[in-house]
C-alpha cells in the first residue's frame, strides 16, 4: 500500500524553524540578512492603496448621469479635500443650488459618464509587517519577503481563533484537567500576557482575561457554547484567524472536556516570563495551517526524523474519535490487512494499549502521533 503520513501536531522544545514573512505587495524590507530580530520588530513595510469611496453624485443631485456629468466640478486625477465641491447644480434660473461635497481627502480615481458616479481614493496607508518569530534573518527576497530562522519552541494546536499577537507567557494556577473559571484569572499583571493552562475555559474567564489586557490564551479544550459566545457567532468551517477578538485563543486537544497534555506542559512551562508569539489562525484544508505558540528556545535542538512521523510499535498516540476520544495509548501492532470495525466498515487498524492497560483495535485514521 502507498505510504501515508499519520497526522501529528508539532510540540517541540527546540526545533529549527524557518518562517517566511511576506508583504502583500512590493514594499520596503527594513532588515538585512544576518540581523537578529525580535518578534515584535517591524521587518518590512508597504504602502497600500487607500480605500476607494464611491460617491453617487447623480443620485445625490437627483438627476440623470449626463446631467450629473455636466454638473461635475472635478476631473479624474484631481486631488480633493474633505468638503471640497465635487458637483454643483443650479436650477430655477439659478435661484436654487444643489451641491455634492467630497466626503474625504484623496484623489479622484474616476468619473463615470454612464452612471454619474465619482470614485475617490483615500491616501495610501502603511502596512507594517512584524517578525513574529524572533531569530536571525536568513534571507531577504527582493522587496517582498523576509525569511527568519530560529531555534524555537513550538506548540501547535488543533484549532484557534484570532490572529498573530506577541506577548509574554504566563501560566494559570489551574490543573491540566481542571476547567478554567473566572476565579483562576489573576486580577493583576495580565497586560500583554499569553496565558496557558487547564481546559474548557468559561466565557467569563476568557472575557476577564481579555479585558485585563491578555493577548493570547492556550488551553486544552473549548466548549462550543463558549466559542460561540466569545467570537459572537457559530463557526461553521475551520478557517479562522480573521475574527475580531481581543485575545487569540489556541486549543491543543479539541472540543469538549479534555485535559492539557503532559507533553505540552513540559514544553511550555520553561517559557514562563518569556516573550512569545501566538496565532489562532486555523485552516484545515487547502493549505493546512494550525494555530500555534512560538518562542525562542535555548535548549538542545531536536530535529524531527522520518520515523518519528510514522506510526510504528512503541510510539505514543492520541485517540481522536469516540469512544476513546482524548485518550493516550501506545502502539503495539499494525495489522497489515484491513479489518472490519464495529460499524461494519473495513479499515486499516492499529492495536494500541490504553493507559488503563486495556488493549483496543482502532482505525489508523483515528490516531494522531503524540
Amino acid at each position, binding site marked *: *500500500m*502507498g*505510504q*501515508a*503520513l499519520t*497526522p501529528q501536531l508539532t510540540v517541540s522544545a527546540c526545533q529549527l524553524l524557518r518562517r517566511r514573512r511576506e508583504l*502583500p*505587495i*512590493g514594499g520596503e524590507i527594513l532588515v538585512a540578512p544576518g540581523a537578529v530580530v525580535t518578534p515584535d520588530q517591524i521587518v518590512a513595510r508597504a504602502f497600500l*492603496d487607500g*480605500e*476607494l*469611496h*464611491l460617491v*453617487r453624485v447623480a443620485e445625490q443631485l437627483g438627476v440623470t448621469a449626463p446631467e450629473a456629468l455636466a454638473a461635475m466640478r472635478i476631473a479624474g486625477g484631481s486631488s480633493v479635500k474633505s468638503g471640497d465641491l465635487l458637483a454643483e447644480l443650479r436650477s430655477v434660473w439659478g435661484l436654487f443650488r444643489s451641491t455634492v461635497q467630497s466626503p474625504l481627502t484623496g484623489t479622484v*480615481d*474616476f468619473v*463615470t459618464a*454612464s*452612471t454619474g*458616479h465619482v*470614485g475617490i481614493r483615500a491616501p495610501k496607508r502603511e502596512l507594517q509587517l512584524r517578525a513574529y518569530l524572533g531569530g536571525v534573518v536568513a534571507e531577504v527576497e527582493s522587496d*517582498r519577503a523576509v525569511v527568519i530562522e530560529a531555534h524555537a519552541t513550538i506548540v501547535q494546536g*488543533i*484549532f484557534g481563533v484570532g490572529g498573530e499577537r506577541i506577548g509574554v507567557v504566563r501560566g494559570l494556577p489551574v490543573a491540566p484537567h481542571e476547567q478554567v473559571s473566572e476565579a483562576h484569572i489573576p486580577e493583576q499583571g495580565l497586560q500583554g500576557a499569553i496565558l496557558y493552562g487547564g481546559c474548557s475555559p468559561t466565557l467569563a474567564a476568557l472575557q476577564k482575561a481579555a479585558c485585563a489586557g491578555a493577548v493570547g490564551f492556550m488551553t486544552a479544550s473549548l*466548549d*462550543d*457554547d463558549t466559542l460561540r459566545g466569545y467570537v459572537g457567532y*457559530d*463557526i*461553521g*468551517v*475551520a478557517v479562522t484567524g*480573521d475574527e475580531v477578538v481581543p485575545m487569540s485563543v489556541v486549543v491543543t486537544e*479539541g*472540543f*469538549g472536556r479534555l485535559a492539557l497534555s503532559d507533553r505540552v506542559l513540559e514544553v511550555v512551562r520553561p517559557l514562563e516570563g518569556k516573550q512569545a508569539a501566538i496565532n489562532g489562525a*486555523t485552516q*484545515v*484544508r*487547502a*493549505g*493546512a495551517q494550525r494555530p500555534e505558540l512560538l518562542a525562542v528556545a535555548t535548549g538542545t535542538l531536536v530535529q524531527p526524523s522520518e520515523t518519528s512521523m510514522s506510526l510504528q510499535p512503541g510510539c505514543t498516540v492520541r485517540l*481522536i*474519535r*469516540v*469512544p*476513546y*476520544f482524548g485518550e493516550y495509548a501506545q502502539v503495539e501492532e499494525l495489522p497489515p490487512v484491513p479489518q472490519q*470495525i*464495529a*460499524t*461494519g*466498515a473495513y*479499515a486499516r487498524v492499529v492495536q494500541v494499549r490504553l493507559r488503563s492497560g486495556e488493549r483496543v483495535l*482502532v*482505525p489508523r*485514521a*483515528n490516531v*494522531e502521533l503524540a
Partner: protein
Amino acid sequence: MKIDPAQLRTVLVTDCGSTTTKALLFERTPDGWRQTHRGEAPTTVEEPVADVTVGALHAFTEVQELSGRRILRDTEPPFVPGAAESAEGIDLYLSTSSAGGGLQMLVAGVVGTITAESAERAALGAGAIVIESVSADDGREDHERIERIRHVKPDIVLLTGGVEGGSTQHVVEVAEILVAAAPRPRFGSTLKLPVIYAGNSAAAAEVERILGSFAQLSIVPNVRPTMDREDLGPAREAIHELFLSHVMSHSPGYGKLLSWSPVEIMPTPAAVGDIVQQYAQQTGSSVLCVDIGGATTDVFSVFPDRQGEPRFNRTVSANLGMSYSIANVLREAGTAAIKRWLPFEIDDNTLRERLLNKMIRPTSIPQTVEDLFVEQAVCREALRLALAHHRALSVGVEQARERGIADIFRQSAQRYELVDLMRLDMVIGSGGVLSHAPSRMQAALMMLDGFALEGITQLSVDSIFMMPHLGVLASVHPQAAREIFERDCLVHLGCAVVPVFSPRQRLTGPLAQVWVDGEMVGEVQRGEVTSVCTGRTGSATVRVVPLHRTVDVGAGRGAPHERTVVLGACGILCDGRSRPLELGATSVQQQERVYRNLGLLPVR
C-alpha cells in the same frame, strides 16, 4: 493532440481531491472496457510536501502493486508506454482535480434573478464554487457589498449585466463596486485578478476602463443576451481557460502533472457533470446525482424543460460537507433537524462537540455504530439543504406566454423550477458517506430521507467514486466511459416507491400495492418504511397501484404508475411517510422502527 480511441487499451486516470488522490486503471478486456484496479494516497498539495505529483505517484505505485503491471519508470513522464500485447505500461494518462479547494469564483450581475443567476449557472457549469454572488438589486448598501467582497479571495470574478441593447448604467455601477472592493486573488498576489466580463457589450469599454487598473480582464459574449435566452458556453470556456492558466498554474506540482497528459486537467465537478449529462442523454432519463464530499456538496440534475428538452444543471453547496464543513451543516440545519433522524437520544452539546471535533480532524472515521448514525444523519440534512439550493437555481426561462399590457412594457421572462421529483427516474449518490457506507441499505435510506423522494425512483451509488475519472475519460473515449459507468461504476441498490399524499388526509389501510413483473410483492403502509425483497436482481417492471384516489404515485392522483428499474441489494424501499417529511416528537421511536424494519439496528 488528437487521440484515437480505437488505439487505447490501458488508461490511467487520477482525481486529485482535497484530501486524497485516487488513481484508477481502465482496461479494454475481451469483455469490454472495465475498471480493473484502484490506488489511493493522500493528496500532497500542502506543506511539507507541496507537490501534487508526489501523492499521485504514491497512488500509481499502489495501482502498480495491486495489478502486477509495471506502470512507472524513473524518467519523465513517469509512465511506461503501453504496447500491443504487452502486459506493461499505459496508453494514456488523464486527470481531474479539486485540490486546493477547487475553483472559487465571485459572480456579479445587475439583477439577482436574471443576470447574476445566469452568471452563477455559468460558473457552476464550469466546475466552480461560487463563494459570493453580488447584484445591484440584492438589497445591500454599497459598503456592505464592498465589505463582503473584500472578505472573499476568489480565483476568478465573472461580471455580467444588461441584455444586449439594454441599459449599461447598472452593470457599470457593479464594476464600480468591484473596483472599490478590489478583491485580492487567492493565488499569485502579485498578479492581477482575472475578471471575465460577460454582460451588455455596449458597456464593455467603460467596464474595461474602470477595471483595467486592477484586473486582468477578458471580454466574452453576454451570458444573457435577451431576457429569455441564456448563452453560457463562452463564459464557461473562458472560466476553464483561466482555471488552467491561473489557478492550476499556481497549485504546487500541477505544471508537472499537466505535462504528463495530452488532455487538459478538468475540474472534478465538471467531469462528474459531463458523465451525468452523457448518461442522461444516452438513456433518455431524468437524473439527480449528488456528490457529497468533505467540504462541498455538488448536485447535478437533468430534467426536461417545458419544451421537453433535457436541461442540465449543477450547483455546489460550498460549505456543506461531511468533514471540513460539517459544522456548517450543523449551523444551517440545527441540532433538532439532525437529531430527528437518529434512533436514539443524544444531547445537543454532545452532538455539537462530536461534529466540531470531526471538523478539526476531518480524516477521522466513525468507530462506533452510534457515531456512524450521527454522521449519516448529518448527511441527510446536507442532502436536504443542497437539494433546496439546487432547486432554487435550476430554473427554466421562457418568455411569458400570455402577454398582457404589463408584460409588453416589462419584457418579463418566466422562471419555473425544473426539478420535479415525481418525474425523477434515477438518483445517483457519490462521495464517501454514500459510496462507502458499511451497508448499501444505509446509503439508500440516506438518499430517500435526504431528498424526500417521491413516486418511483431508481436508487444507485457510485461504487468507488469513479465518476470524475469517467467524466474525463468520456472526453476522449465516450464509449469506454459508458461501458465502465454502467458495469463497474453504478451499483444499483433498488428502487424507492413513495406514494405522495397530504399528512392531513385520513387514510386507512395500505396506501398502495407494489407489483413486480405482474406479481404483487407488497404494500406501502402509511407511516412505515419497509423493504420488499423480491430475491431478484436485474431489470424489472415495477408497477404501483394507489389504493386511495387522493394518493399520487407518479401518474396523477389515484392513477397506477410503472417504471422499469434495476433491482439490487435493497429491494424495493416502500416509504409510506407523507410529504413533506414531518418527523415529530416521537421521532426516536419512529426512527428506531424504520431502522429495525430495514435491518439497520445493531444487535445488542
